[in-house]
């Protein structure tokens, strides 16, 4: 895990350490099993076409979970995630598998974010962030926001 980040270390505009992800058909199967979301939208071609999305798409909740990791990687240990939200605006399509383990060449997704506000309330130090998942073309398919509490270097 990354080293502890403190309230004094961040300013409005501070970039959150980006996190790279590659969605694959294999990963979607794994996610379906782990999350219990067996909607055929994520694995059946004809059903996905009938639903108007063209082909099986990456689960929105998986992208949301990536954004959760983006935040908890950034604020490890003493930082606390208070709120997380995102909207599933754009469809993302997983890479197909070439071998058991290796996906075909294709898109890499990046989870990114930046600080939009910092403030103290009571004895806690809050930081608000704009976060998003962006696809290989640079489109923000999954914009959202997060609110965290960070420790201070002074301990006050």
């Amino acid at each position, binding site marked *: 895990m990354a080293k502890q980040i403190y309230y004094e270390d961040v300013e409005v505009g501070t970039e959150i350490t980006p996190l790279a992800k590659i969605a694959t058909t294999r990963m979607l199967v794994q996610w379906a099993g*782990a999350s*219990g979301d067996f909607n055929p939208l994520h694995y059946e071609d004809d059903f996905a076409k009938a639903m*108007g999305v063209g082909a099986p798409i990456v689960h929105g909740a998986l992208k*949301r979970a990536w954004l*959760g*990791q983006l935040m*908890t*990687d950034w604020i490890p240990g003493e930082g606390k*995630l208070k709120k997380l939200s995102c909207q*599933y605006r754009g469809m993302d399509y997983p890479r197909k598998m070439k071998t058991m383990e290796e996906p075909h060449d294709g898109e890499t997704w990046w989870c990114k974010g930046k600080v939009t506000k910092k403030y103290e309330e009571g004895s806690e130090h809050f930081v608000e962030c704009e976060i998003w998942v962006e696809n290989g073309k640079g489109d923000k398919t999954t914009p959202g926001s997060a609110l965290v509490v960070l420790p201070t270097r002074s301990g006050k």
Partner: protein
Amino acid sequence: MPGGSLITDELQKLIGVSLGTTISKVEEGAIQRYAQAIGDPNPLYNDPDYASKTEYGRLLAPPGFTGWSIKAERPMEKLFESLIKAGGPPRVLDGGVEFEFIEPVGAGDVLTATTKIASITERETRLGKTMFTTVEITFVNQRGNVALKSRSTLIQF
């Protein structure tokens, strides 16, 4: 809205209605499989020995954990059907979610989740006439405290 409202009388009646309560135990293995599916190697979610020595005292669940052992998502699946049966458009997509985290969730916790339809609205989007249903889930832990709340939006067109 031209061509009339998507929100039928039957859909109106669903607003504010509870979709039921589920009780689920958070399992260690479910947390680990969930973290692996995200591709998150954080030892708090993967290594029970490590996690037990932290302030959490047990394997911690990733934020917004809705792993297989949490049944609150099941009423959501039934909800798709009841919204369509009540006259809602046939194509359903997940629009997004907001989480508020109040207490940590970890292995061994027992969560009682209550699911309710908070609102149904409609507007014109690039998908055409589109209906938005907001569903709220409140998760209460075995200590009687609210651990987290979620608000999900379903899109129908």
